């Protein structure tokens, strides 16, 4: 089994690499690449994402054929894919950070700025927040309701179909923080920085 972390120059992915390697030990091979053939031949793919929605989409577009490869992997071949932070947000049809930008369109919905209620809520939403588990999700197996996860973001994913939501968190409103749609998984929080429960999520994904 091999799990590939997509390196598309979207910012710092060392923590993602470290955490996956820690969980995988020698059982699973963790690759880090932007090589399309390596991505195609992987069993699972992790799509991280830091910075803005636009900068991440731009970075994906810069690598010729990457979006098509990811589409094939996740949509046509229905192989497991985990998006983290902006990696999850990009599942949407459209994002509004910086400027209106088309997303991957894998889960219908949009990415909009969190309502700070006239300054009542500071943005970015930084720190540890509890997750409210909304439905059974394979990646949330053995993760208790109200577990703490580490968040850093100012934008939120608003999916059209609420059935894809596996967990939310309370900040200004109920922010979607985990989704599962068939073989596609995503977390708004950073499992790689969320201590043992975060590592558990990574373990669940690797063990799918």
């Amino acid at each position, binding site marked *: 089994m091999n799990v590939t972390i997509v390196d598309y120059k979207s*910012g710092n992915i060392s923590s993602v690499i*470290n955490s996956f390697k*820690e969980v995988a030990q020698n059982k699973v091979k963790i690759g880090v690449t932007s090589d399309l053939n390596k991505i195609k031949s992987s069993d699972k793919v992790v799509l991280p994402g*830091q910075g803005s929605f636009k900068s991440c989409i731009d970075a994906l577009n810069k690598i010729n054929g990457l979006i098509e490869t990811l589409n094939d992997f996740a949509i046509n071949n229905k192989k497991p894919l985990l998006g983290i932070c902006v990696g999850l947000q990009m599942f949407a049809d459209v994002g509004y950070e910086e400027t209106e930008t088309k997303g991957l369109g894998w889960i219908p919905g949009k990415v909009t700025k969190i309502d*700070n209620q006239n300054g009542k809520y*500071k943005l970015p*939403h*930084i720190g540890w927040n509890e997750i409210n588990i909304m439905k059974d999700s394979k990646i949330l197996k053995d993760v208790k309701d109200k577990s703490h996860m580490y968040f850093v973001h*100012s934008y939120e994913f608003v999916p059209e179909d609420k059935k894809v939501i596996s967990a939310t968190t309370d900040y200004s409103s109920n922010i979607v923080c985990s989704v599962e749609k068939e073989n596609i998984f995503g977390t708004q929080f950073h499992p790689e*920085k969320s201590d043992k429960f975060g590592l558990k999520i990574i373990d669940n994904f690797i063990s799918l």
Partner: protein
Amino acid sequence: MLKNRIIPCLDVKNGRVVKGINFVDLKDAGDPVEQAKIYSDGGADEICFLDITASNENRDTIYEVVEKTSKKCFVPLTVGGGIRSAEDINKLLNCGADKVSINTAAVQNSKVVIESSKKFGSQCIVVAIDAKKNGKNWEIFTHGGRNSTGIDAIVYAKKMEECGAGELLVTSMDRDGTQVGYDIELMSKISSKVNIPVIASGGVGNLDHLVEGIKLGKASAVLAASIFHYGKHSIKEAKEYLDSKGIPVRI
């Protein structure tokens, strides 16, 4: 509900902890990696390294420390001290730091903040503000508090938010090392003025000071060094105390 964070800070010089946790069972009391691991296992919400290495030839030691720590600690790691450029930031992030805190370089050239927050994302750019009371106002200082600038701390804080800082780490130079508590007035003034999280620093001597920093200083997170050193208080004790005072913490 978003929890208030407790961030222990370790001063690192030439790759070694200067003041540290003095645990008897510690194999190597000067090893920052081992100390960071104790903090993260104890429930620290983040770990902060402040690199105080003076000589240029030893500056690379911090990279090795960060690299090793990030393979063992799975909570956010912030590194500050001596960061001059986007290249320094890139190097630290590549070694596994999650955030960098920029102090002197941000004062000298705010473009460093603008460019690095665009390049790496605001989430990893913390601007550290060292402020000293001057009459009714606070003035910011650079170079570890040695050089005055004549710049007003509140105005500067707002400017750094506009430049793209994701958080502000505010240290009162008057209180730093005194253990008499945070400069609450400074913290609450800055926190009310900006819409990004403020981390309070400088002056913690007991657990009540942490409570004050959050309740009165309106800080999102509290940073402390010496109360966690030499085993005076554990992170767990600090969190339980804050919890008993009605402050939301991750336990």
